[in-house]
C-alpha cells in the first residue's frame, strides 16, 4: 500500500469516527456538518475529474451544482403542490423520490456539460476559464429572473425527499446516504483514473501532441471527462439542496464554482481524496474561524495562497509526496 492509501484510509476513519461520536452523544449539528462535508466533497470529486485528471480549469461547475439543485427543487415543489410540471404532450409530475431526483439531476447536468463542454473545449487556458465562468453566470442570472421557482429569493422544500427504506429526516440516516454516495463516487473516480480512459485523459493533460500522435483525439476525451464531471457535481447539487431543503440562484453563482475549486486545490488537485480533504478542511475552518470572525475567508485566502505557492499537491500531496508507481 502506498503512503497515499494510508492517508486516505486515515481520513476515511476520521470521517466515520466524528459522526459516530456526534451521533452517540446526540449532537445533530455535527452530523449535519459531516453530511455537508460529504456532499461538498462529492461536488469536488466531480470537478477533480475535469480539473485534476483532464487539466480543465472549469470556473463554471456551479452550473452543474445549480442544475442538480434546481432539478431537485422543481421536482419536489411540484410534488408538494400536486401540480404537474407538464400535462401536454405527456404528463410529467413532480416527485419526492430521491433516486428519481438524482437520476434527473445527473442527466440534466450531464446534458448541460455536453453542451457547455462542446463549446468551451474548443478554447483553452484563460479563454476556457472565462467561457465556463460565463455559462455559470448566465444560468445564475437566468434563475434570478425566473419567477416560477422563487426567482431571487429561492425556493423552500418543506419536507426532505424520501429514499426507499430510510427515514431521511433522521440526520444520521441522511448522513449515511450521503457517505455511501460519496464512497461510490470515489470508487468510480479511482477506477476511472486507472482505466484506459484515465491514462489517455491524463496523458492529454500533460502533452496533447503525444496523445494525437498515437491516434487518440484529446477533444473527445476531454468532452467525456467534462460530462462525467458535470454529472457528479450535479448529483452533489441535488443532495445539497436536499440537505438545506432550499434552493436559490446562489447555487449557480461563481462563488460556488470558486468554492468547489478551493476544495480541490486545498486537498490536492488530481488526488483521489483531494476533494474530501479539502471540503473537510474548508468546513472545519468555517466552523472554527467563522465563529471567531466574520472575515474568516481572509484566513482561508491566506491558506489557499500558501498551498498554491508552497504546497502544490495540496494537503494530500504534501503528506503523501509524489506518486511514481504505475500500477
Amino acid at each position: 500500500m502506498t503512503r497515499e492509501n494510508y492517508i486516505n484510509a486515515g481520513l476515511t476513519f476520521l470521517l466515520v469516527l466524528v459522526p459516530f461520536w456526534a451521533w452517540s452523544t446526540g449532537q445533530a449539528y455535527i452530523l449535519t456538518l459531516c453530511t455537508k462535508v460529504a456532499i461538498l466533497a462529492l461536488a469536488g470529486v466531480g470537478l477533480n475529474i475535469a480539473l485534476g485528471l483532464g487539466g480543465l480549469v472549469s470556473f463554471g461547475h456551479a452550473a452543474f451544482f445549480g442544475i442538480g439543485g434546481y432539478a431537485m427543487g422543481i421536482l419536489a415543489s411540484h410534488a408538494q403542490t400536486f401540480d404537474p410540471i407538464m400535462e401536454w404532450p405527456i404528463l410529467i409530475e413532480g416527485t419526492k423520490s430521491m433516486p428519481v431526483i438524482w437520476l434527473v439531476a445527473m442527466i440534466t447536468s450531464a446534458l448541460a456539460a455536453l453542451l457547455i463542454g462542446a463549446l468551451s473545449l474548443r478554447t483553452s487556458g484563460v479563454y476556457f476559464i472565462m467561457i465556463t465562468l460565463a455559462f455559470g453566470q448566465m444560468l445564475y442570472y437566468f434563475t434570478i429572473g425566473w419567477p416560477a421557482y422563487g426567482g431571487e429569493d429561492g425556493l423552500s422544500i418543506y419536507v426532505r425527499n424520501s429514499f426507499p427504506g430510510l427515514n431521511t429526516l433522521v440526520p444520521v440516516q441522511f448522513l449515511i446516504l450521503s457517505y455511501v454516495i460519496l464512497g461510490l463516487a470515489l470508487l468510480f473516480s479511482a477506477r476511472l483514473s486507472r482505466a484506459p480512459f484515465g491514462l489517455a485523459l491524463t496523458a492529454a493533460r500533460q502533452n496533447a501532441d503525444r496523445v494525437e500522435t498515437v491516434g487518440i483525439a484529446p477533444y473527445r476525451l476531454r468532452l467525456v471527462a467534462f460530462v462525467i464531471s458535470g454529472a457528479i457535481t450535479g448529483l452533489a447539487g441535488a443532495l445539497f439542496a436536499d440537505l438545506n431543503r432550499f434552493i436559490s440562484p446562489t447555487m449557480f453563482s461563481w462563488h460556488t464554482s470558486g468554492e468547489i475549486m478551493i476544495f480541490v486545490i486545498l486537498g490536492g488537485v488530481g488526488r483521489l481524496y483531494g476533494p474530501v480533504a479539502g471540503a473537510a478542511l474548508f468546513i472545519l475552518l468555517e466552523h472554527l474561524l467563522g465563529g471567531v470572525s466574520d472575515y474568516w475567508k481572509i484566513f482561508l485566502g491566506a491558506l489557499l495562497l500558501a498551498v498554491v505557492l508552497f504546497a502544490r499537491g495540496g494537503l494530500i500531496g504534501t503528506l503523501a509526496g509524489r506518486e511514481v508507481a504505475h500500477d
Partner: protein
Amino acid sequence: MTEPLLQTRGITKSFGALKASDAISLDLRPGEIHALIGPNGAGKSTLIKQIAGNMQPDSGTVHFLGQDVTALDTVARARLGLGRTFQISALAMEFTVLQNAVLGALGARGGVMRFFRPVMKDRALLDRATEALERVGLQDHAATRTAELSHGQRRQLEVAVALTLKPRAFLMDEPMAGLGAGGSKRLTGFLDGLRAEAPILLVEHDMDAVFALADRISVLVYGQVIATGTAAEIRANPDVRRAYLGEEDAA
C-alpha cells in the same frame, strides 16, 4: 519501381516572407530509409509536421497508402499507420516509461472509452509496450518517471512509443540527438533492421548515421529540395557540396 507508400506533392508553406517549404515533392518507398538532411532552419521539421498533420500546407498534397490525406488531422493519419517521433520529445513527463509505451499500445489497439478495468493490468497492452521498450533497450527503466530520463533516453522512448503503433511508415525527426556515440551506433543498427518492417523518413544531423543507413538522401536548403539520390550521388553532387556539405568540410 515499387509504388511509394508516402508522397508529398508540391508542399509549400510560408511564414510571412519566409518560405519554409518550397514546392517539396518527395516520396518514401517500401523497405527504404529516406534521409532528409539540411542545415538548421532549412525546414525539415516543418515538412515533418505537414506530413504528420500538425500543420496544414499553404498548397500541395500529402498521399499516404494511395490516399490523399491532406485534409486529415494528426489523429486520423496516426490511425492510418503513420508513426512519428518528435525532435523535441513529446512525452507524458509525469508518467513512467512503461505508461508512455502503454499509451501507444492503447492508441494502436483502440478502446480508450473504457472506464473500469485497470489499463496497467491489461496483459495485451503490457506485452506490446514491453516488447517495444526491449527493442530500444529501455526495459530496465520501465518503472522510471519519464521526467527523470536523460535526453537520449527520451529519444529512445519516442521511438519505442512509435513502435507500439506498428505503423506502416515512420517519420523520425532527429532520433539520434543527445544519444552519444554508443547510443547512436546502437540506434543506427536498430533502424537498419526496422526498415524491413516499415520504411523510415529520417531527419538526422548525424552524418555517419545518415550515410550508413540511407537508401536515398534528400537535401533540403531554404525550404527547397536541391537534390535527391543515393549516398554516393549526394556526396558527389556539386550543389550539395556548396550549399551544405561544404560547411562541414570547412569545419
